[in-house]
């Protein structure tokens, strides 16, 4: 069971978005920004992106690959994939609970 208590503070949400973005393969910083923006409709600022990337790398959830033309791709580690799976499962359970309660209230 991965440790989901990663103490990412205010970077927890951007970190989750980054992990989801990297779940289909390695991406460099700008590609992550555009992917997150396309997926959520909300911009991910470069300062927030790199603050979160540094934390994720420090915790071993992502790893940097060799840079290509100054752009360094990142990829999910095994531990990162496990933590992401755990977090998404928790979110799914939480969403189901909320929808069930909403449904019960409307009936």
């Amino acid at each position: 069971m991965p440790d989901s208590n990663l103490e990412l503070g205010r970077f927890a949400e951007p970190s989750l978005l980054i992990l989801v973005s990297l779940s289909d393969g390695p991406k460099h910083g700008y590609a992550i920004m555009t992917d997150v923006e396309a997926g959520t409709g909300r911009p991910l600022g470069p300062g927030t992106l790199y603050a979160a990337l540094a934390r994720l790398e420090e915790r071993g959830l992502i790893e940097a690959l060799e840079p290509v033309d100054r752009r360094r791709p990142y990829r999910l580690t095994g531990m990162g994939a496990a933590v992401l799976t755990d977090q998404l499962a928790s979110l799914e359970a939480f969403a189901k609970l909320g929808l069930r309660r909403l449904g019960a209230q409307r009936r």
Partner: protein
Amino acid sequence: MIGLLLALYPAPWRRRYGEEFRAVLESRPLGPFDVADVLLGAVDARLALRLSDGVTEHGGQLAMLRIGGIGAIVGSALWFIGIAGGSAADDGPDTAWLVVGMIGSVGLLLALAGLSGFQAHHEPRLAWAAFGIPAIGSVLSLAGMFGMAFVPDEQLGGTWSGWGLWVLGLLTTLIGSILFGVATIRAAVFSRRAAVALAASAAAAIVVALGLTGGSPDPSVARILSAGVLAAFAASWMALGVSALRHGPIRAIAAALS
């Protein structure tokens, strides 16, 4: 403008992320949101650097962690090689294999000393037992191997032979390693998977050892079974050492600071 924004970040951060961060900033025109976000990012990077400066004050603990991690990896590998090599000979273990095993036992002692320090914050009694019992076992095992290699049994005195001391040390080490695995799981500083594997493989090795003494199985089966569980035991220590070196520092320092 981009150069100015980059200059707000601390130098170590710029050395690591500067080039790629500049490439991202140059990828599109910067709006007010981006500039504000980068300014906040620079503040965050400086705060994070101050925190990591605090971490370097715990250099002694980091050194312990490294010694423990390397001790676990190298020690368990040599320990297993020494046992496997020594067991292969039909006319008793060769001195060279015993010396390899002894060096491995010293490595395991270093691993226990280095890694157990990060468990005391959580459950002191368990941590002390998890350190003390396998440490006593490793010392006994070391003495047993020394005896087998360099001291004839009749000179050891009492009823103990080098072999007997080694077996007692091995069993004590295995029992203590179960406790060490449990303490590691509870402390959640190093890999829990490796800790579970350590406890399980140590328990399996004890079961196999007791099973072998209770019955008289085919020698080749006994040898394969023993080698399998002891290899798993050594591999678990190695995994714990790798985990300590790769992922442990941040959690260990956080645990030390808490």
